[in-house]
């Protein structure tokens, strides 16, 4: 029962396919045949009525008050178990068969049904609530030419509705017109696909001209389009209007669930409504996940059915024999029932009677108890404070309650990278300037190094910036020229755009987070990049504004791996600043840098070893002549029509020579907190972690290193990059051969191997060490030294027989595979090849993977490995993987909620995974297993007594116990203690299970509950039943009461056996319970107490007097339980039942102790010796932390340059041409105008703009709009800005930053020539921003006008799209809101 917590969640209520069917059914029978095409005519409800399209009312609930009972019961009786009990109930109504009263079955059944019904009802209630909330949202519908407020549910297909900024889109709309120029509007699709960046939608030009509602009211175009489907990125249709056809694409659609951003208002035509919308078509979990325990349980239940039938047959045969031999003679006292005329028929009836009696071996309350236990575990997950992330105020949430115990069996984890392992935040971590390294935290033992406070020194500093080494700041303050030069470079050499909403409030929009981090670092150290135009860069250097003229940007590309800028400083000196990958940059230095280069190189190695992304920085002074000549050659290259790229590269190469090294930077791709530790702990728990990422190989590998999945000590890391099937196959094979060969060759260099392992096992020893502290000491040390021995393999290995050998490969390998190689590797005939190689590796990283491939990889493991898989991710691209894995985990609070919605569990930080698995999962599994063992045991012990009694009562299906006892045994007398155990039991405390990850292994191996354990349980149950029957039988048949009345009567026997049974199973649960909380005590003692109380009550005179035929056990309890013999019997039976179990368990602990036993024992001893030991979580963490800190020396070979990572080519060109600025300034303008917090501002602005803009909007109609009018138009159109934030929840992520933009608004309307901009800055920052924006616009506008082609706009749009490809505003609020980028809707881009 997941209580819906968030509004966003309500958008995606779980919709079962069934309901959708039902929903469609409701829309009219005519529509049952699949809709082939959809015709919608605008503003014509009558016409659209004909088609009976779904209304916009969304109904995710299953029931209403009237239908609840029948529908719910119908659903419940679809469960096999419930039907079975219904069948039994019917059997019991046949008097010849009925061996039990009807209520013995109906009471438990009713209880089970009602518990489930209550649960379903609660779930449905919440669905109703969320449905109502969604359905009752207001939207403005254009009816008869006027806007009317309508509830969402009343919106019809064909209506034209008006959307305002920040509103949710009510249905799938065709965008008709918008307040923005060219019918553009911006939407955020986080709800839909999880991407938080903004997307642009544009209306068809003819409709965008319609403009306001008066024109729209008369719009009567007809749309013919595809039927509803779930493809989010595709739409095709045609608009017929005024005898013309217009093609419609996804670019024209606003989908339900999106939020309108930065667009004042827009009008749309409803195409799909309610259940037909793509959102609803997409929502819903198609697959119902079951745990392996579930499946096992079902198998076992089937077996038990079989067993039941066998017993029934045996007893029926017995009955036949008995009736023939004895019963026929006894007929004078008891003739056969009328329909029975021979012993065979009697046996047939007896079979059914026994099926009824023995039905309790199939425990009716099993399923419901399992559900209750799982629910309890889910609540514990929800309640866990240690899985609560205080930064994002998110607690962990178990979104499905049916998978908990599977969390204790996970063998493979598939993890996304960005947002899951990493925070996607780059931070400037270390730097080396002129041979001096900064940023090292000098004293690692210091508890919390002090964060530098930049504000007194630099008012423009970014408060979120963290740096700890104050020597660097000192160096800046004293004016060290190298340091200044260093930061000047950082402030100039980049392609970052800035926004300054108010004085000092800078927001950088970096194309890659690395760059943002560097520029921010420079900003904090006093070199503030403030603004740029295509030809200038304005900075504030140590408080002094400086404007450089930007002469050239030598852009980055993958081959160059560096970028440079050439600037002229105010003094007129020309200088080239270059930053780039050390490998390429160090080659191009002036020879005099040799010494510095060596030192810096050492530093770079150090940084790389710490998993940081490095860049080297250099500059070169250029004389005017040099510049002139180069500039000429550059221009030539630029204009070249053929081989432009190459010639440009050559030109760049020419000037990037003889540079002077400044230093190096190291950027940390910030991992989420505790990621390396978590990965280490999880891999110690024998969980294999695969990273599946859409990132580039370099990035992925880099992260692999920094989160310690890959280490330099690994024997080998295989890269599979083949592009053809053949090459991939070859590479995989070669990798396997190497795996077998390598250890052999390494025998010689054993020491190295030992060292390698030593470190690899370091973590292990870290933990083991603690264990040893109270363990043996001397003896075990050696063997514990290296639990994963790199052991020299036996020298004579047989030639590689394929897979088996791979199992015992020594040495550590890792596999990195590329997306296109993976595509080949996943082909049917390659699967096994890939699998055997990949599974032999310790770490597997798949990069450039598409969402579909992620799912395929998961499916592959699921299919061939029979292992439990868990997928964890945060983005829409992880959804497929999350859905296909056994368990899907969503990281909440980062990148939209799509992943969370698809997931089974969600929490905010990757590191919680270890607690989820090692603590909650482990416990859940343990509890569930213990619960099941006990449950089957107790039912067998209970039921099998009837079987033995059958041999004494002529197989007549006489029960041993009172019928009330049979009714209540499972639901009252024994249910609560076992539930308490199933919910609360712990074998070792949570901290221990984190400390000893090996404790997790039994779950993976499925040791605690499997068919073997099941047989042990039922054997024990049968043994108990034998004892419980024969001991009282033997004793009582001869015994008498102390007053001479024989005890061998049936009722005494029944009471004695029942009491013995209850006591034995209570003792057994006491033995099974490992963790006696108050609740356990209350339940165990309470159950015993309730047994006696209820029995005495049922045997009381009062009840007998009312219903003499129902309560004929009157007085049995009193007179039986007063007899010492009875108690002696019970004691004896209990002893005989329990003693062997006790001995067996003791032997198991003594001879073959499980790790958990040992841990438990140490814990016990600990508690006795010292009072509360209270080794806190912190301690444990410190242990891990220190290990990860202290890397043993620097290792070469894995230096990784930051530049290779996230950078995109062609950005420099965009800047110099000013193209991209157009969009972003557009964004600025629109942003600002929408997010004003005060209506006065709006008013003022309106007046302002009206003053400037001619009222005619004719410019907009031109096919190639001039940019100027484009930027102005939104303001002139801005009619209502106030209705901004009705539905804010989603906005939180991105909304704050835009709000700051307000101040800049005023600027966008004026048109200042670009050249003036830089100088005016100091006096009026606002004006400067204004100038900047406008200035940037101009060139583009000019360019477009010059082009004068109708397609001019679109071309630009596309270019910009490409340019901004990858520019996402996933980062935190500090790093700017996403510009309304028109990034391609691609999900493979992380």
């Amino acid at each position, binding site marked *: 029962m997941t209580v819906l917590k968030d509004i966003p969640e309500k958008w995606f209520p779980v919709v079962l396919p069934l309901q959708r069917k039902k929903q469609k059914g409701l829309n009219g029978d005519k529509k049952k045949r699949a809709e082939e095409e959809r015709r919608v005519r605008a503003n014509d409800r009558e016409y659209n009525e004909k088609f009976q399209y779904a209304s916009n009312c969304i109904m995710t609930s299953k029931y209403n008050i009237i239908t609840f009972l029948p529908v719910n019961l119908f659903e419940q009786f679809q469960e096999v178990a419930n039907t079975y009990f219904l069948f039994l109930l019917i059997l019991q109504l046949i008097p010849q068969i009925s061996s039990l009263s009807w209520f013995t079955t109906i009471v438990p059944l009713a209880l089970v049904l009602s518990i489930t019904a209550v649960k379903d009802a609660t779930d449905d209630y919440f669905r109703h609530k969320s449905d109502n909330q969604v359905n009752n949202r207001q939207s403005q519908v254009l009816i008869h030419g006027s806007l009317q407020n309508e509830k969402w549910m009343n919106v019809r297909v064909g209506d034209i509705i008006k959307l305002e900024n920040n509103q949710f889109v009510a249905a799938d709309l065709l965008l008709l017109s918008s307040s923005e120029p060219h019918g553009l509007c911006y939407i955020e699709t986080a709800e839909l696909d999880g991407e938080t960046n903004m997307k642009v939608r544009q209306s068809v030009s003819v409709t965008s001209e319609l403009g306001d509602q008066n024109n729209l009211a008369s719009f009567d175009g007809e749309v013919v389009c595809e039927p509803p489907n779930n493809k989010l990125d595709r739409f095709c249709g045609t608009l017929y209007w005024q005898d013309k056809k217009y093609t419609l694409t996804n670019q024209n659609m606003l989908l339900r669930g999106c939020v309108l951003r930065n667009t004042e208002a827009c009008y749309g035509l409803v195409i799909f409504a309610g259940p037909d919308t793509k959102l609803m078509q997409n929502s819903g979990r198609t697959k119902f996940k079951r745990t392996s325990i579930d499946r096992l349980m079902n198998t076992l239940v089937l077996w038990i059915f079989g067993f039941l039938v066998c017993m029934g047959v045996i007893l029926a045969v017995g009955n036949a024999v008995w009736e023939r031999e004895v019963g026929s003679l006894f007929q004078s006292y008891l003739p056969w029932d009328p329909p029975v005329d021979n012993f065979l028929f009697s046996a047939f009836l007896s079979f059914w009677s026994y099926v009824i009696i023995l039905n309790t071996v199939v425990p009716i309350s099993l399923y419901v108890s399992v559900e209750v236990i799982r629910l309890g575990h889910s*609540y514990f997950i929800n309640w866990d404070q240690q899985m609560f992330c205080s930064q994002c105020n998110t607690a962990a949430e178990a979104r499905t309650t049916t998978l908990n115990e599977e969390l204790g069996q996970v063998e493979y984890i598939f993890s996304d990278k960005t947002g899951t392992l990493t925070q996607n935040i780059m931070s400037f971590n270390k730097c080396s300037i002129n041979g001096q390294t900064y940023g090292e935290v000098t004293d690692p033992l210091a508890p919390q190094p002090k964060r530098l406070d930049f504000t007194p020194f630099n008012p423009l500093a970014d408060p979120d910036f963290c740096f700890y080494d104050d020597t660097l700041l000192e160096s800046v303050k004293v004016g060290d020229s190298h340091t200044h030069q260093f930061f000047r470079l950082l402030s100039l050499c980049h392609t970052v755009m800035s926004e300054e909403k108010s004085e000092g409030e800078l927001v950088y929009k970096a194309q890659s987070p690395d760059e943002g981090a560097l520029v921010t670092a420079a900003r904090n150290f006093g070199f503030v990049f403030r603004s740029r135009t295509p030809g200038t860069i304005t900075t504030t250097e140590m408080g002094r504004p400086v404007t450089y003229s930007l002469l050239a940007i030598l852009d980055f590309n993958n081959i160059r791996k560096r970028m440079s800028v050439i600037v002229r400083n105010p003094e007129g000196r020309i200088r080239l600043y270059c930053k780039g990958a050390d490998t390429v940059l160090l080659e191009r230095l002036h020879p005099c840098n040799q010494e510095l280069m060596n030192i810096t190189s050492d530093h770079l190695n150090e940084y790389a070893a710490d998993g940081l992304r490095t860049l080297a920085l250099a500059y070169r002074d250029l004389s005017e002549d040099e510049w002139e000549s180069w500039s000429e050659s550059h221009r030539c290259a630029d204009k070249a029509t053929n081989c432009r790229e190459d010639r440009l590269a050559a030109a760049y190469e020419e000037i990037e020579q003889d540079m002077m090294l400044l230093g190096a930077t190291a950027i940390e791709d910030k991992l989420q907190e505790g990621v390396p530790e978590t990965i280490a702990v999880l891999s110690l728990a024998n969980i294999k972690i695969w990273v599946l990422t859409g990132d580039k190989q370099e990035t992925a590998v880099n992260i692999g290193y920094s989160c310690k999945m890959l280490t330099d000590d690994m024997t080998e890391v295989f890269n599979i990059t083949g592009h053809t099937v053949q090459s991939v196959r070859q590479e995989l094979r070669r990798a396997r051969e190497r795996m077998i060969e390598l250890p052999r060759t390494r025998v010689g260099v054993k020491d190295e191997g030992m060292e390698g392992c030593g470190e690899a096992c370091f973590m292990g020893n870290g933990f083991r060490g603690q264990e040893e502290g109270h363990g043996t000491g001397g003896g075990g040390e050696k063997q514990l030294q290296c639990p994963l021995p790199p052991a020299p393999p036996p020298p004579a290995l047989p030639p590689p027989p394929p897979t088996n050998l791979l199992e015992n490969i020594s040495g550590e390998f890792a596999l990195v595979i590329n997306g296109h190689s993976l595509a080949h590797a996943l082909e049917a005939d390659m699967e096994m090849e890939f699998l055997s190689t990949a599974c032999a590796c310790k770490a597997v990283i798949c990069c450039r993977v598409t969402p579909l491939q992620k799912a395929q990889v998961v499916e592959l493991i699921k299919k061939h490995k029979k292992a439990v898989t868990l997928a964890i991710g945060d983005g829409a691209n992880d959804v497929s993987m999350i859905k296909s894995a056994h368990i899907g985990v969503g990281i909440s609070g980062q990148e939209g909620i799509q992943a969370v919605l698809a997931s089974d569990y969600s929490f905010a930080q990757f590191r919680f995974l270890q607690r989820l698995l090692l603590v909650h999962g482990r416990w859940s599994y343990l509890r569930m297993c213990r619960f099941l063992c006990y449950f089957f045991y107790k039912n067998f012990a209970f039921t099998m007594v009837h079987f033995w009694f059958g041999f004494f009562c002529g197989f*007549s299906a006489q029960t041993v116990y009172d019928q009330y006892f049979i009714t209540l045994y499972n639901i009252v007398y024994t249910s609560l203690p076992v539930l308490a155990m199933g919910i609360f039991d712990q074998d070792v405390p949570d901290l221990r299970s984190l400390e000893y990850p090996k404790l997790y292994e039994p779950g993976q191996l499925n040791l605690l509950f499997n068919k073997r354990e099941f047989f042990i349980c039922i054997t024990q149950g049968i043994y108990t039943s034998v004892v419980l029957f024969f001991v009282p039988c033997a004793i009582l048949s001869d015994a*008498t009461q102390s007053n001479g009345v024989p005890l061998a009567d*049936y009722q005494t026997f029944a009471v004695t056996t029942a009491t013995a049974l209850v006591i034995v199973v209570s003792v057994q649960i006491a033995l099974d319970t490992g963790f006696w909380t*108050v609740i356990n005590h209350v339940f165990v003692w309470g159950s015993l107490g309730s047994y006696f109380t209820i029995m005495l009550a049922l045997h009381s005179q009062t009840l007998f007097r009312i219903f003499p035929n129902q309560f004929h056990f009157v007085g049995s309890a009193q007179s039986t339980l007063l007899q010492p013999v009875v108690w*002696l019997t019970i004691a004896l039976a209990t002893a005989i039942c329990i003693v062997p179990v*006790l*001995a067996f368990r003791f032997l198991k602990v003594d*001879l073959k102790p499980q790790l958990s036993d040992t841990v438990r024992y140490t814990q016990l001893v600990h508690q006795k010796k010292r009072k509360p030991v209270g080794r806190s979580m912190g301690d444990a963490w410190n242990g891990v932390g220190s290990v990860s800190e202290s890397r043993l020396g620097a290792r070469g070979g894995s230096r990784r340059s930051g530049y290779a990572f996230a950078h995109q080519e062609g950005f420099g060109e965009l800047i110099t041409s000013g193209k991209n600025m157009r969009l972003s300034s557009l964004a600025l303008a629109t942003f600002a105008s929408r997010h004003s917090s005060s209506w006065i501002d709006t008013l003022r602005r309106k007046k302002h703009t009206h003053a400037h803009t001619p009222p005619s909007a004719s410019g907009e109609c031109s096919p190639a709009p001039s940019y100027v009018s484009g930027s102005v138009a939104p303001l002139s159109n801005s009619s209502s800005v106030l209705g901004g934030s009705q539905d804010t929840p989603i906005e939180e992520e991105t909304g704050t930053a835009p709000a700051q933009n307000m101040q800049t608004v005023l600027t966008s309307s004026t048109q200042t020539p670009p050249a003036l901009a830089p100088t005016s800055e100091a006096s009026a920052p606002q004006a400067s921003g204004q100038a900047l924006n406008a200035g940037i616009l101009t060139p583009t506008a000019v360019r477009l006008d010059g082009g004068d082609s109708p397609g001019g706009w679109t071309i630009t749009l596309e270019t910009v799209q490409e340019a901004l490809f990858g520019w996402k505003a996933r980062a935190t609020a500090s790093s700017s809101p996403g510009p309304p980028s028109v990034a391609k809707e691609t999900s493979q881009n992380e």
Partner: protein
Amino acid sequence: MGKAKVKSGPLARRPDNSAFKQQRLPAWSPMLTANTVLPFFYFMALICMLLGVWLLLTVQSTQEMKLDYTEAGSCNLCYIKRQNASNAAQSCTCSVMFSIQKAFKGDVFFYYGLKNFHQNLRRYMDSRDDGQMVGRKRNLKNPSSYCQPFDKDQTGVPIAPCGAVANSIFNDSFTLSYHQPGSYRVRIPLLRRGITWYTDENVKFRNPKTENLTLAEVFKDTARPLYWQKPVYELDPDDPTNNGFINEDLIIWMREAAFPNFKKLYGVLNRADEVFAKGLPAGNYTIDINYNFPVQYFRGRKEVVLTTLTWFGGQNHFLPVAYLVTSSLILLLAVVLTVIWWKFGKAGKNMQE
């Protein structure tokens, strides 16, 4: 935590820090260590041993005499006679002699026993109407359907008491006499009242309200069970208060036995007589039997049992023997466990350190 306070601020959704929710409830986690298990085993063995010995001694002090009279002595004739159902109405008496070597001291209980008589068959056990037996007039005239086919006689008159159980009541009667040495036979007085469960006699079985009528009038419109010679209100000719549903023989019979071989109390030695004040003296005895109950149909046997009692009931050798066997098994197990623990239980010892 107060709800109002918690619902704001950055930690608004933080789960409560209660021991319950954080699964940190104080708890006792017992463990099976040698320190606890082995002593427990020895202790158990000891207790069982002591109990066993004590029970054995107690049982030794009791005496029991069983006598199968199915075909014994002159009952042979009756046995043959009862084989033929047409003789059911004819009475048959016989006598069996036996002797007691050692005097039965204290209270002596006289039981009759049946072998291979299944009172525990499901349909047999159900074939009764407790509502009728508790004196409900409605049930008296309309016996429960469970009683079929013994609910009504051929003419449709309801049977009281109905059902197979009552119908098959054991109807032999015994007269026990003692051959006083040098004298004539003394009839041994048996107490035949107060030998049922208290609740049976006072709650479960009641006669219908007589309302100034005689019992016979109350039962007027009912028939006696098919196999009965006398109607229910004439079961005890000597004691009018022992008639109807509250007749103790009926009550005892109606308490169905759990197993096919059973004994039921017939009477208790009345020690008021000075000859029997100390119990039954050693010597020769005769039982005169009114041999009515046919057992040959179901290959059954009939017996009488004389026994004395101790605090926990009659002679029952199984209980002490079971205790003794259990105790020795536990002891054996304990020793084995100790040895195993000592010799092989390395892990255990490691843990000890």
